[in-house]
């Protein structure tokens, strides 16, 4: 079998023409793997009692939690609507219908231009979005571990030849199903980065450079938990036992690939959500439909979103996330 070069240079390459990209054997191999990943995901979640719900891609409001990214406005019969940056609000609302739901949701975020060179940002991408009523953070973290392990095992078995064509070291991947991932708190991650000389802000998100540094230290994915409140949207639940910190987590891939997934227990109390909206600079009035649902009661829950293209990039061992997308939108780059 001919081995393809998925990593042509150390500099982040950009896609060629649409035809070149679509007809590339690399794209073909990668999207074959991705297709099997999605089938495995649906199979796993279905076996675990989750119902797939097709959630909206436009609405009067969307997830405000994206770092510095701009939402996309559209004119909806004279009303300003948004394309979904994530389905979080609809995920919570949908738990009044089913206790366990998921969707493979398209998201659009006009990311800041400095993300053009991170190799892992797309302005348009998809998430495996999961939400579970009554669940704790630990329960959904275990679900993430099991899901990633299952999907990886399945694709390695189903399309081993595609990994061989891409030259992906599958020994590393085979370990993904070998038990729980490591866990460390945000406070601990900040301390590690500062020891390494990286000036990580203790009150904020682990920045992209820091995340890549932590990722390179590990051989298996690991969780970072308990992010500070000022780093995330209003829906991640604040820890009542540790005010100022959230009952949330990120899953960081090993080998320098960075963040794959974010998740959390959710705020579901009306007054708490209003206060958190203000703390995140939001105007509650624009969330009228969501707040009406919350005021009448939505279930406590926990859930997560896994970036489909990022997980594909990690599993397939790609240099850049755009290689995991048929029609990639790199931030700031005009593309079909």
């Amino acid at each position, binding site marked *: 079998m001919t081995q393809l070069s998925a990593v042509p240079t150390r500099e982040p390459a950009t896609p060629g023409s649409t035809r070149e990209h679509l007809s590339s054997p690399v794209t073909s191999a990668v999207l074959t793997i991705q297709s099997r990943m999605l089938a495995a995901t649906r199979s796993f979640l279905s076996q675990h009692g989750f119902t797939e719900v097709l959630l909206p891609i436009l609405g009067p409001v969307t997830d405000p939690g994206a*770092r*510095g*990214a*701009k*939402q996309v406005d559209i004119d909806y019969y004279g*009303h*300003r609507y948004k394309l979904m940056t994530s389905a979080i609000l609809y995920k919570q609302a949908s738990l009044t219908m089913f206790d366990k739901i998921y969707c493979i949701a398209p998201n659009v975020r*006009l*990311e*800041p*231009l*400095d993300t053009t060179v991170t190799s892992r940002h797309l302005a348009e991408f998809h998430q495996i979005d999961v939400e579970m009523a009554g669940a704790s953070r630990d329960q959904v973290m275990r679900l993430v571990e099991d899901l990633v392990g299952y999907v990886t095992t399945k694709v390695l078995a189903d399309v081993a030849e595609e990994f061989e064509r891409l030259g992906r070291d599958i020994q590393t991947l085979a370990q993904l199903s070998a038990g729980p991932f490591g866990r460390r708190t945000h406070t601990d991650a900040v301390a590690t980065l500062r020891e390494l000389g990286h000036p990580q*802000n203790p*009150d*904020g*998100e682990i*920045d992209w450079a820091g995340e890549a540094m932590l990722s390179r230290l590990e051989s298996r994915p690991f969780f970072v938990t308990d992010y*500070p*409140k*000022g*780093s995330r949207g209003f829906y991640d639940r604040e820890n009542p036992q540790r005010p100022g910190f959230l009952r949330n987590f990120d899953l960081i891939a090993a080998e320098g690939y960075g963040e794959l997934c974010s998740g959390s227990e959710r705020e579901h109390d009306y007054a708490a959500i209003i*206060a958190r909206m*203000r*703390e*995140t*600079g*939001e*105007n509650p009035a*624009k969330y009228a439909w969501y707040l009406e649902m919350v005021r009448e009661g939505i279930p406590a829950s926990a859930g997560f979103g896994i970036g489909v293209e990022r997980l594909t990039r990690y599993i397939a061992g790609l240099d850049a996330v755009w290689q995991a997308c048929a029609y990639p939108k790199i*931030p*700031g780059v005009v593309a079909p």
Partner: protein
Amino acid sequence: MSHLRASTFPEAAVRARARTGAPAAFADSEEYGRALFGQTPADNGRLTDWLEDLRLVPPVFVPHRLDKLIELGREPTFRDVDLSTTIGGFRSALPLYLSAFGSTKVASVDLGLAASRQAGWLGIPMVVGENVLRVNGFGRDEEDAEGSMLARIRAYADGALDGYGGVVVQQSTEDADAEVWNLVYSDPNAHHLLETGRLAFELKVGQGAKPGLGGMTLLDPVSAARLADSYTMVPVGAASAVDGAAGYELLDDGGGSAADGVGGQRAAQPDRTVLRCCSPGTFTEEILRQQVRLMRNNFPRARIWVKLPPSRDVRAAAVVAWQAGADAVTVDGAEGGTGWAPTAFLEHVGLPLGECLRRIGAPEGCLLVSGRMWEGSRVTKSLALGASAAGLGRAALIAVDADPMCGLVNLVECLALELRMLFSALGKYCVAALSGEDVWSPDGGFEPR
């Protein structure tokens, strides 16, 4: 007109209200677009601001001048004063910045652009008001280019003094809906500012002219209809026989009373002026702290400023902002403001700037002040009391109105000369050297730091 008189009573004001109703809460709307508003000085021409009562007090013994003498090898003069400084993370040629004008008609288009351009030439930071984007547009599309936020930014950046200054984009509670900061942060037109470390975002918590209220502008009915989804709109036409018997209009009524019905009728009338009201936003210590942290998190390459009203808890709010990581806290004294505000607020609400400075004491971070700044002594006193720089608002607008080509440059040239002379008289040769010892309070109400 009856023959009733009440010479010891503010009769004219009562009669004005009786004739025009709610609009009398403001200055004459005929002046809107032509006049700059703000607190009127007391009858004796002296402001009630304690800052005005202070005197700058040069000493005989001037150790800083000796340092300068040694450095220069000759006697220093006022021309040796270095006015360059750091303002909220920006290098500035002077301890001055251009305050936000908001979107009020006075500041629209020509004057705003002229002031922006000249602030760039001067190498001083410029704040772009909170609702310019919502009312005047962003400026990426041809149709909204003139007077837009981008037009102001371009006017500033085109001739900006290399390596100096920066653009500060304000956002208040309702503006969060328009994602002003996100839009600027991801826009290619503003990328150069970001790349050169000259972009800041200012969280507007309040303002001097109307502490406790949000921004206000008068709009024509067509503009009001366009913005009706985003802001509270209050028709402010006078009650008259045409409006029928239900002629009362309560400007502060937001509860769905009969006044809404009156407002509704008035809004339907095509020639009614409409008052656009922003919410001031709800803040607690925790809300302010987390908002600042989220700004730092979401916009790590931008500087973060916080603008406070002259509130009774101004010190507590400033400390929260600094401790949360704000690069600058701006305090707008009750004397401040270019825009539309109820006269009750202009004359009776909020602390004078001097009292704000007294309450804040030694600042824990960069403190910026505004309110009736136009000449050197008030600026120098503010710097001596802990401020890092002073903002020019009405003075800048009047200056560019007087001379659109170089009015602000001329005003600042004069101001800078005064600053140099005052600094050197105090035996100081840089902004950081000024301190509380340089001012004297006749009532002993100030303890030098």
